[in-house]
């Protein structure tokens, strides 16, 4: 075990405190209010989703059954927290924030500890639904269980997130050559930020084409190669294909339609995320000095999205044989509206937040989550929320013309 000098431990603790304070102050009052509202929505949603089954479990299986159910919920949240921490640790392994750590006279182990602490921060998000689930047990579970469960939850979360980070580091830190013989924490720092070896790409053809087509071609190349947009497209494509399966697998046409729509909406949501990422992700110094207009940037993404969605809707209409003719004709029309709404919401958020793909995507998902909670609370309210979001994003489109440095 590496012995870390106490002054380094203090320095890294101070760094962690300063980073936390800076992040808190940079959020600003408005974002804090939005975050608090979303947290309250999530907590209220979880409370009612847990409270009713807990009451049922108490009636049918007694106190032990109810405690078991709440333990399962909290256990699920602990595992979610672990997954979040591991996912973040992998991202931080590839690109550790901060200075060139290896140039400093510090042990890689303490840098790893610092990065693991950073990675565990997003896992704290599960505390909100966990607290709501715990509150749902009040009046139903005995006091001893209500006292024991949060302590166990806190300990389990701390342990699982630590284990997840350690595991993620071992998986992600794969060095080659001399780096492979180093301890995982060291190997991760050595291999991070090292550019990939120059794989060759088939020579590009110079073409004469409209700017929006050139931009669409660039989007395609970037989306098929970059990890993040490619993952979104793969997910969307999988959900699209999955949305066709119920027409073959389900004998009941109405059930098949409901399942097919659910998968189709999921695919549209992911296409919207792709649009947000790509529309916001063009690097300023490469694209801004070029004679490209907002219309070009919009058309380059909207056209392929509309074509893809139109093609899938057509296939759905063809496969929906068990439905009456009127319903088959109405299906692509009625499904096109939510599909376009989701895709355009992502695209317009991306264009209005040019140069900030992370912010565009976070805002997009925040709207989706709000819409989801809205629809669970009052049927169809979520769509009203999403229409309002799309109108607001559309009104912000002219911001594309006056970008600020990211």
């Amino acid at each position, binding site marked *: 075990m590496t012995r870390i000098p106490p002054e380094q431990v203090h320095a890294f603790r101070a760094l962690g405190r300063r980073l936390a304070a800076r992040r808190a102050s940079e959020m600003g009052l408005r974002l804090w209010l939005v975050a608090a509202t979303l947290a309250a929505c999530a907590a209220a949603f979880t409370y009612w989703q847990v409270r009713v089954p807990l009451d049922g479990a108490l009636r049918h299986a007694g106190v032990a059954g109810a405690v078991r159910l709440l333990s399962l919920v909290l256990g699920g949240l602990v595992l979610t927290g672990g997954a979040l921490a591991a996912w973040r640790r992998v991202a931080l392994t590839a690109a550790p924030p901060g200075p060139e750590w290896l140039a400093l006279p510090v042990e890689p182990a303490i840098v790893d500890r610092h990065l693991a602490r950073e990675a565990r921060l997003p896992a704290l998000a599960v505390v909100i639904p966990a607290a709501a689930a715990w509150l749902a047990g009040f009046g139903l579970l005995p006091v001893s269980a209500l006292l024991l469960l949060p302590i166990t939850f806190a300990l389990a979360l701390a342990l699982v997130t630590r284990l997840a980070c350690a595991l993620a580091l071992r998986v992600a830190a794969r060095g080659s050559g001399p780096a492979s013989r180093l301890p995982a924490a060291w190997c991760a720092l050595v291999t991070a930020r090292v550019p990939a070896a120059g794989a060759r790409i088939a020579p*590009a053809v110079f073409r004469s084409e409209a*700017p929006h087509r050139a931009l669409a071609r660039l989007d395609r190349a970037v989306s098929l190669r970059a990890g993040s947009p490619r993952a979104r497209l793969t997910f969307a494509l999988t959900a699209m294909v999955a949305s066709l399966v119920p027409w073959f697998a389900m004998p009941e046409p109405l059930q098949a339609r409901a399942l097919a729509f659910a998968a189709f909406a999921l695919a549209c949501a992911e296409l919207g995320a792709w649009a947000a990422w790509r529309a916001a992700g063009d690097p300023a110094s490469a694209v801004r000095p070029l004679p*490209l207009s907002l219309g070009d940037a919009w058309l380059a993404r909207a056209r392929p999205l509309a074509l893809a969605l139109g093609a899938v809707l057509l296939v759905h209409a063809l496969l929906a044989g068990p439905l009456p003719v009127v319903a088959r004709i109405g299906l692509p029309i009625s499904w096109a509206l939510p599909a376009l709404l989701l895709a355009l919401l992502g695209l317009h958020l991306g264009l209005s937040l040019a140069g900030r793909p992370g912010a565009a995507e976070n805002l997009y998902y925040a709207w989706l989550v709000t819409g989801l909670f809205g629809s669970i609370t009052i049927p169809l309210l979520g769509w009203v929320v999403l229409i309002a979001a799309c109108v607001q994003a559309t009104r912000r489109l002219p911001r594309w013309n006056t970008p600020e440095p990211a």
Partner: protein
Amino acid sequence: MLEVRSLTRSYGTRTALAGVSFTVGAGEVVGLLGANGAGKSTLLRTAAGLQPPDSGEALIAGHDIWAKPLAAKQSLGYAAEEPSFHEELSAREYLAFVAAVRGLAPAAAHDRALALARQLELAPRLDEPVRGFSHGMRKKLSFLAAVLHEPRVLLCDEALEGFDAPSALAAKSEIRRLAGHGAAVLFSSHVTETVERLCGRVVLLHEGRVARTLAREDWGAGDDLHSPLERVFLDVLGMALAGERR
């Protein structure tokens, strides 16, 4: 050809540009000198359409870059100080995209891109993803994309810093050639030796204002320690600082 009129830009309470005005005529190569934080990059980014000014305007070939961006950017080339790219694309793919957006004839654009890439010693790496490029290679690619369409106005933001000697020579030749064909070039650099060899006139920026404009005959001879322009630059900077202290 390039006209900057009363350009003002602030970041919060800090003023980066305070009413900067000057022109660069056709066929002229004008240097832009200033200490760190003097406002050079802000000026060039604003004139290139990367960030809007608080007030004032930048005319590229007669078109205001913020009022008529498409017309202005047709005539503009911008080589960035810290160029950013779509990292997954190859250099050739990026150049093909730039050529298409600028409406260049494909065959001619490809030939010119290849010729420039050979001069800048970038040709063997044209089909590799940009993410594997070194800092110098990224700057070469940015410069290549900026001059691909033979712009009427070329803005270079420390564009040659990071170039190896043969490539720097080739780039300077290209800048001179473009100026010879009537392009207006604004060339920002910290390397005064490069500026004094390349530029016919120099604009000195200090704290967001034009401290002085120097013609070639103004910077005379240097001494053992300083190049001629460096000595004048330090004198002007010293005078400006002394004026502030008073």
